[in-house]
């Protein structure tokens, strides 16, 4: 392995791998991606992996997600089958009083071109007959879908490697400093130098930022998921709270707890989640649950992605966000533009770390 690169990306989750892949496509950079574990061992490997747009608000944030979702079919043609399916997304509501909110959402999203329909109970059940007859209605959009996160990240890494990008796994970054204008990244396996540095550490972004003297205002949020055995085809859409994977497993979960990096499954949340599964899809009561898992989500303090240059750190960049699966094709594209050309086709000003005003010192 070399010692010196044009770009070092720290973190090989869905965001870091996508950046490495898209950068490698530009054929203009020598790239090293370093991960303390292995791709999929963190947040990106413990997700339902919806590609979800329709009720992301405000509309400008929904728009960003829409652009990214639109990139998936093209991405798949380049890196291979990631089991991306534009199933359409259904977000059911159980009370008629929610219809007004739903209509308002549809109106707002229409302004940026996201088509959201507000469905009656009968319309929902026609689309998705397994849903409970107790629902009052749902918002629906055909832009939503899902992807196999295991395939997605594996293929990002494979494609990037094919383009010459290097990866170093099970290699914890211990220190970052600047030497003669270059970043010096010290890891448990050695020292590496680069001109540009991208922090893509997901929930670990905060501690990475500390190495540069920068506060990255994110929280860790645990989400617990239950997974059934593979079932005969039951759900055809991505439902707000669950989906059926290609292999027939149904993944259910919608919990959030702030418990740091604790990834245990607790019976309290698992039981709530099982109840929710049956409330949404009564037939699931007969399904066998095979496993549960939990993931630590990244949650920027205001909820929106942190993307772009790190203020005060020349040639330092950050990409930390919730919804990394949905956003990864677009984020990889935009970060590549930024690192290669210095400007992006979508203005990232609103997503800059600057908005938090939390720079402590220049590392």
């Amino acid at each position: 392995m070399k010692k010196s690169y044009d770009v070092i990306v720290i973190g090989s989750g869905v965001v870091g791998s996508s950046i490495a892949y898209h950068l490698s496509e530009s054929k203009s950079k020598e790239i090293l991606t370093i991960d303390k574990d292995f791709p999929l061992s963190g947040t990106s490997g413990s997700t339902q992996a919806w590609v979800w747009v329709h009720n992301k608000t405000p509309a400008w944030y929904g728009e960003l997600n829409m652009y990214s979702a639109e990139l998936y079919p093209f991405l798949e043609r380049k890196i291979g089958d990631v089991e991306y399916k534009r199933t359409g997304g259904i977000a059911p509501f159980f009370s008629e009083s929610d219809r007004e909110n739903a209509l308002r959402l549809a109106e707002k999203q229409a302004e940026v071109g996201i088509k959201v329909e507000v469905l009656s109970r009968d319309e929902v059940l026609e689309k998705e007959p397994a849903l409970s007859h107790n629902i009052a209605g749902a918002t629906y959009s055909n832009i939503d879908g899902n992807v196999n996160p295991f395939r997605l990240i594996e293929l990002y890494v494979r494609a990037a490697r094919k383009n010459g990008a290097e990866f170093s796994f099970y290699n914890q970054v211990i220190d970052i400093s600047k030497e003669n204008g270059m970043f010096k990244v010290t890891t448990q396996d050695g020292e590496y130098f680069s001109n540009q540095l991208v922090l893509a550490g997901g929930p670990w972004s905060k501690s990475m930022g500390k190495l540069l003297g920068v506060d990255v205002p994110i929280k860790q949020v645990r989400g617990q998921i239950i997974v059934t055995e593979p079932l005969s085809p039951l759900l055809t859409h991505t439902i707000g709270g669950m989906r059926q994977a290609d292999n027939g497993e149904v993944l259910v979960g919608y919990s959030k707890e702030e418990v740091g990096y604790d990834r245990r499954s607790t019976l309290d949340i698992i039981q709530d989640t099982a109840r929710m599964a049956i409330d949404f899809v009564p037939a699931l009561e007969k399904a066998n649950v095979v496993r549960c898992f939990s993931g630590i989500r990244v949650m920027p303090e205001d909820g929106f992605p942190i993307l772009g240059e790190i203020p005060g750190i020349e040639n330092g960049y950050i990409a930390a966000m919730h919804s990394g699966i949905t956003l990864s094709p677009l984020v990889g594209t935009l970060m590549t533009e930024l690192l290669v050309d210095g400007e992006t086709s979508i203005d990232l000003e609103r997503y800059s770390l600057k908005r938090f005003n939390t720079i402590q010192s220049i590392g």
Partner: protein
Amino acid sequence: MHITHHPVLKKDERKEIKFFFNDEPLKAKVGQSIAAALMANGIKKFGVSRKLHQSRGLFCASGRCYSCFLTVDGLDHVLSCSTLVEEGMEVYSNLSDPDVRRGKNEN
């Protein structure tokens, strides 16, 4: 085959009952697991694996390997090594993924 004369254990005095496998009537002893009752009738293949469609049957008999799944009284994927056979029980091979919408709970 049932063991009628066990070298150590006393005479088997368990009552005989009838159950069905793929609609065929079979005999079992009270207190036997479904898996054992099928083996007693010479049936070893309980179903097929989901990817390669290879034959599967009893493997660990301890409720841990899940190779012995069967459909029992309308419920798919019942662990047959740890479920007791009952009079009149209707048991079917495990040939496909469970269909949770089938039967009485359909909404």
